[in-house]
């Protein structure tokens, strides 16, 4: 049998549903994440449109205040934890990282599957709260004392705490997997200076997740204990501190927002060289900027607390760091613009989304800088100006590259080309819609409209702006529907393409579309940061079992050949077990939860026989 035949036989997983349940193939796991996050994106978007419909006119009664509270809370939680993070890391990251580094899978394939099942479980857990009429309703940042038992006696906040702890396990495992994969599984010859910028971006985001999530976990544990076990972490009357919640939340929360956008920077930084056929200007600076944004981003958290009455001498540290965290992002923006100007730009749909991203990001970045000035921040806290700022950043800097990336890698995943004209039209509609939706928020915010209000009185001059925003929201919806409609029709009827329709720079364009189960028949030996633009060599076929080369972290020198684990029922079983633990915790059945945790430990032991 030929080497390709052998590889095919060894790496192909069992067919049908059982194959999907026991999969450890990073590409299948990436697709599972993709479909799941799209459903949750739909939920988050529906929440947004319901809010916009309610706010379109003053004194409206589309939804009442309690429902509205659940809407804005779920919207934030869903979009951040259940759309952007899993879409960028879980879907794009999982599918593409091994392909870009010349590997056959992630470093820990079964743990990768576990990350997905836990993510799915945590999403179902969160939305179960909605089905039970007890969705979180104290905002995505859930401040105490509003979130304490005294003011939120129902189960809403318990769902919040436990869903985020549960979801955090998934992201922590995923982050660990990415770090080890990117550092140890790169193809021979791929030293750090030859590693794609996409990988630097995901490395940065993964370090961010690893070091930020513990703060959120601790915070949520403290809150759950305060609420259900009677501790006093946040209880001022017994020596606790309400500000402690905010500190811990934002020590997580600020790095989190960089984690949201940095993978998207990685997508942008992959699309630009492909559509300009030019190497990225200042490559080493862009690479380090990805890491610097996240690193410095750990030091700015209290800029979310400028209006809490903390001493100025404390706050000044955070104003200082916030001023400087802009610089790495600016380096990247300049590098991207110079690359586009230096090359021969083809403004196909993916590049259009990246140009849109740059424009949105610059506007959002400028309003962000304004907040560095403590007095300005204190005026604008909790107004719509803040909402305008972060939606320009999140929608512009995270969602636009995601949409661009969907178009860019569509041919690789499906072996077909998308239809270009509807693609470009979808971009323009979304671009127009989001500007209409978010720009007026700057104005009403400066005019004093507060956040998280379910309605507002007439006669304040806010009505027209809100109506425009709502219209913008529906236009955005139309554009998004066109985008997905285009991709669906293209999947069925698009023109077939081979491995490299774009003459892309990185290794995923050297293998067939869609990629075979084993990714690379011959492990490449890399000699450039743009390996598909140079002649490619390699002689490692490695067709005995599930072989994968392991290389050194800095220089990509071959260290050993490993046998990778494959197809296992343990990840999905452990995911189910953990879901059971959290379900029991939310109804305070602590002893049974402990027993369920013990069963999970047994599953873990069986996994590692």
């Amino acid at each position, binding site marked *: 049998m030929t080497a390709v035949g052998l590889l095919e036989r060894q790496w192909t997983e069992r067919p049908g549903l059982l194959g999907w349940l026991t999969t450890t193939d990073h590409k299948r796991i990436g697709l599972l994440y993709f479909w799941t996050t799209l459903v949750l994106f739909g939920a988050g978007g529906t929440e947004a449109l319901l809010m916009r419909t309610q706010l379109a006119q003053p004194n409206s009664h589309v939804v009442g205040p309690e429902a509205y509270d659940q809407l804005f809370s779920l919207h934030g939680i869903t979009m951040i934890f259940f759309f952007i993070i899993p879409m960028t890391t879980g879907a794009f990251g999982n599918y593409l990282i091994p392909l870009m580094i010349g590997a056959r899978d992630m*470093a*820990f394939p079964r*743990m990768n599957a576990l990350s997905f099942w836990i993510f799915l479980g945590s999403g179902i857990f969160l939305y179960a709260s909605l089905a039970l009429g007890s969705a979180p309703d104290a905002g995505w940042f859930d401040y105490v004392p509003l979130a304490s038992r005294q003011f939120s006696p129902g189960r809403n906040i318990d769902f919040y705490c436990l869903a985020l702890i549960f979801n955090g396990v998934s992201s*922590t495992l995923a*982050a*660990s997997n990415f*770090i*080890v994969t990117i*550092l*140890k*599984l790169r193809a021979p010859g791929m030293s750090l200076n030859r590693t794609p910028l996409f990988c630097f971006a995901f490395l940065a985001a993964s370090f961010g997740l*690893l*070091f930020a*999530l*513990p*703060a959120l*976990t*601790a915070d949520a*544990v*403290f809150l759950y*204990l*305060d609420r259900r*076990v*009677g*501790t*006093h*972490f946040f*209880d001022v009357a*017994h*020596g*606790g*501190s309400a500000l*402690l919640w905010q*500190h*811990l939340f934002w*020590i997580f929360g600020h790095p989190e927002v960089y984690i949201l956008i940095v993978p998207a920077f990685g997508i942008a930084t992959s699309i630009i060289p492909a559509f300009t056929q030019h190497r990225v200007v200042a490559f080493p600076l862009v690479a380090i900027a990805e890491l610097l944004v996240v690193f410095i981003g750990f030091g700015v958290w209290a800029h979310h607390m400028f209006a809490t009455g903390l001493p100025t001498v404390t706050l000044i540290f955070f104003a200082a760091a916030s001023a400087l965290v802009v610089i790495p992002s600016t380096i990247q923006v300049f590098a991207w613009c110079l690359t586009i100007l230096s090359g021969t730009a083809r403004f196909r749909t993916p590049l259009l989304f990246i140009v849109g991203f740059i424009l949105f990001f610059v506007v959002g970045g400028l309003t962000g800088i304004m907040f560095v000035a403590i007095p300005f921040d204190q005026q604008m806290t909790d107004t719509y100006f803040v909402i305008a700022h972060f939606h320009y950043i999140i929608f512009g800097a995270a969602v636009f590259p995601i949409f661009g990336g969907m178009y860019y890698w569509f041919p690789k995943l499906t072996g077909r080309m998308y239809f270009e004209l509807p693609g470009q039209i979808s971009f323009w509609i979304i671009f127009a819609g989001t500007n209409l939706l978010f720009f007026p928020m700057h104005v009403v915010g400066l005019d004093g409209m507060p956040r998280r209000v379910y309605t507002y009185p007439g006669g304040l001059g806010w009505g027209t702006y809100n109506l425009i925003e709502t219209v913008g929201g529906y236009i955005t919806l139309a554009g998004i529907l066109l985008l997905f409609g285009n991709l669906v029709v293209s999947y069925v009827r698009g023109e077939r393409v081979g491995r490299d329709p774009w003459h892309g720079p990185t290794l995923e364009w050297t293998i067939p579309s869609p990629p075979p189960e084993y990714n690379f028949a011959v492990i490449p030996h890399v000699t450039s940061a743009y390996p598909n633009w140079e002649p490619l060599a390699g002689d490692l076929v490695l067709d005995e079992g599930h072989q994968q080369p*392991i*290389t*050194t*972290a800095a220089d990509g020198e071959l*260290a*050993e050949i*490993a046998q990778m684990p494959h197809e296992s029922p343990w990840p999905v079983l452990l995911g189910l077990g953990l879901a059971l633990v959290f379900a029991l915790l939310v109804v305070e059945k602590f002893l049974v939860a402990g027993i369920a945790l013990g069963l999970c*430990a047994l599953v873990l*032991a069986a996994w*590692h*026989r």
Partner: protein
Amino acid sequence: MSAKPVAWWGMMMLVAAEATLFGTLIGTYFYLRFSTPHWPPGGIAKPGAVVPIVLALVLVASVFPLRLGTRAGIALALLMQAGYFAYAVHDFADRLHSFTPQTNAYGSIYYVLLGADHAHVAVGLLFDVWLLANWRTIGLRVITVYWIAVAVLTLAVTGTILSARA
């Protein structure tokens, strides 16, 4: 410096995450302390020094048999660690007679910080048992890293708890 196996890197990821978690808990301890005039508050006695220090040293010492690389070494380490755990849990339960997590914020952070440390030791005991049943060198190497981390974290936790004596 030879290339470390992938499993070693995986354990380092776990250590990084757990060390950060303890950093958060220790940071919380000091944050609450800086906002409280008398520490420990509410008439709670300052913690004794002898038992925590001896216990921490026992845990540190238990790392050395692991480095022998034999099943007997693991068994000895397990014995020392189990002894540590039994006494630590007894002490933990005993102290609940003086003050509880529900007494005040000091009680809350005291028991959660210490409890988290003991939980990590408990997990380590399970690792030891698993290793004795599924002997492999890579497992020993990785579990040794875990115990070194837990020993260091226990020293940090002990130092934090005892800082109340200052």
